């Protein structure tokens, strides 16, 4: 028990004193996962909206692919990104394996289907006639899509949160493509894994607390979204 209490005590000390290593790891985590989420939003929202609004043969298949993608196992993503970025791999010439860039790529691949799937669902959940209503107000196609996305902004925010939550807490792909290099590609999750295996529970707990706080924040926003007024 002493170990745990001592660990917790030291963890809060590290947090309260803004321990440089902990801070650096946290910032890198936010930076990598934030960038990856941003990329996933660009791709996910645009494709998700297009698929939601378009009618084409094989649409059901595409939707089921996207939904499957929402549950991509990070290790598998890590594996394939590693293979592609490997020195002799197809994208080996980029020389980005074991860099934060590689982690951003892997995390964006994990987050994109999540954002895309939620966008698809959010746009489809809008009233059937809303699209016609917007067009009848004189909107161009572009204006119509923009208004629809604005109408779905709260569920889309849920998508952002789910995407971000998925990648910030992900460890498999990050450790495989980032290499957990101290001061360079070490993030909250990979550091927690390593410190725990070394028996440095204080730092591990401090990192864990930060992850928990982030999880709490994300869930707070999601709950707020779920509890909002129903549209009429």
């Amino acid at each position, binding site marked *: 028990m002493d170990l745990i209490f001592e660990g917790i005590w030291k963890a809060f000390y590290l947090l309260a004193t803004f321990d440089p290593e902990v801070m650096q790891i946290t910032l890198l985590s936010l930076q990598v996962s934030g960038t990856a989420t941003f990329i996933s939003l660009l791709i996910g929202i645009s494709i998700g909206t297009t698929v939601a609004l378009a009618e084409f043969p094989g649409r059901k298949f595409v939707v089921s692919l996207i939904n499957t993608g929402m549950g991509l196992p990070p290790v598998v993503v890590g594996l394939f990104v590693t293979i592609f970025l490997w020195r002799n791999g197809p994208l080996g010439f980029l020389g980005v394996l074991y860099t934060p860039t590689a982690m951003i790529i892997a995390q964006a691949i994990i987050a994109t289907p999540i954002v895309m799937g939620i966008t698809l669902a959010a746009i489809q959940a809008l*009233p059937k*006639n*809303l699209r*016609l*209503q917007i*067009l*009848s*107000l*004189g*909107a*161009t196609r572009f*204006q119509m899509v923009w*208004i629809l996305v*604005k*109408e779905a*902004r*709260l569920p889309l925010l849920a998508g952002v949160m789910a995407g971000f939550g998925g990648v910030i807490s992900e460890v498999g792909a990050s450790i495989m493509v980032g290499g957990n290099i101290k001061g360079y590609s070490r993030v909250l999750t990979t550091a927690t894994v390593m410190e725990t295996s070394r028996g440095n529970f204080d730092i591990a707990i401090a990192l864990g607390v930060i992850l928990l706080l982030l999880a709490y924040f994300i869930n707070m926003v999601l709950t707020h979204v779920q509890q909002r*007024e*129903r*549209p*009429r």
Partner: protein
Amino acid sequence: MNGSGLILEGKDLQVYKGGSLVLEVPVLRIGEGEVLSLIGPNGAGKTTLLQTLARLIKLSRGEILFKGEKVFSNHSVFDYRRKLAMVFQEPLLFDTTVFENVASGLKIRGINRSETAKRVDENLEQFGVSHLKGRSARKISGGEAQRVALARALAIQPEVFFLDEPFASLDPPSRESLIEDLERILRKTGTTTIFATHDRMEALRLSDRIAVMNGGKILQIGPPAEVMNQPLDEFVASFVGMETILTGQVIKRDRGSFVASIMGQEVEAVGEIGVGESVVFCIRPENVTLTVPPHKESSSARNIFPGKILKTIPMGLYYKVQLDCGFLLVAYVTGHSLENLSLTEGQEIVASFKATAIHVIRKTKKAL
């Protein structure tokens, strides 16, 4: 048509959905300033016709002319849509303030702020919802939301206004006051309006012409009085409230009138129809008079039939009485007369109606 010319014309309109023909309108002309209502049961094609005329759904065949000009290419469809507005059964308000909702059509058009603010205020005012201006559109009642939706549509100052059952989901008091306001506003602005409803009373009240639809076709179109009193076929007759529809054969002919046999009973009606021809008699329930026997021969009605009350059904302010006079006859009586005559089910009664109260539809044999 109280306007000068045609504003909208549909020619040979056909729409297929999932391989089946859901709309077939060979010709439809709408005059400037006219209020046309489309009535018919659910699935009659009213919504499809509205959305087709608004070019919100694709035509499988045919063309639409706006002020004599064809609406066809993508560009002109878009220009055309900017001249019209549409309100649906659901208010479909955006998740923002009431003001922003009413302003949305104007913002889409890039109209400047002061003009937008002015028009929004005017329209909120005329629909009596100015006090809601700053409120979230999510936090207003259903009736208020529909008023905001109407204000949003009219803020555009459309040349053609499409309404798709806008009152159908409102409670009776909100519906009543909203119809009253809309009627006033439409008369004032003289906006050409095409209005779908399944409620014939709404149609009667608001329109210059009524089109009765069923199965994707317009069965009859004309001024309200004509459609209500001279339905072209049995479907229209039943839809416009002719509760009694009887089929029979002409057995006697006189000058200006004839007698048809209906289930063995002789019923006299007005018209020039030859012996042997098949006819359909349509009788409005409000034109049938009930008396308790013995019947005094004072009424001018030619058709007097003793019968028995099968059923009395309360309809709000009046009762619907179903009678068996050898044929089935429906009459309306007020609650007051129901009590006075102490009408009960199974009671013997005398029903009478004038020969002129019968609308006659000739059953002509279809040409080959």
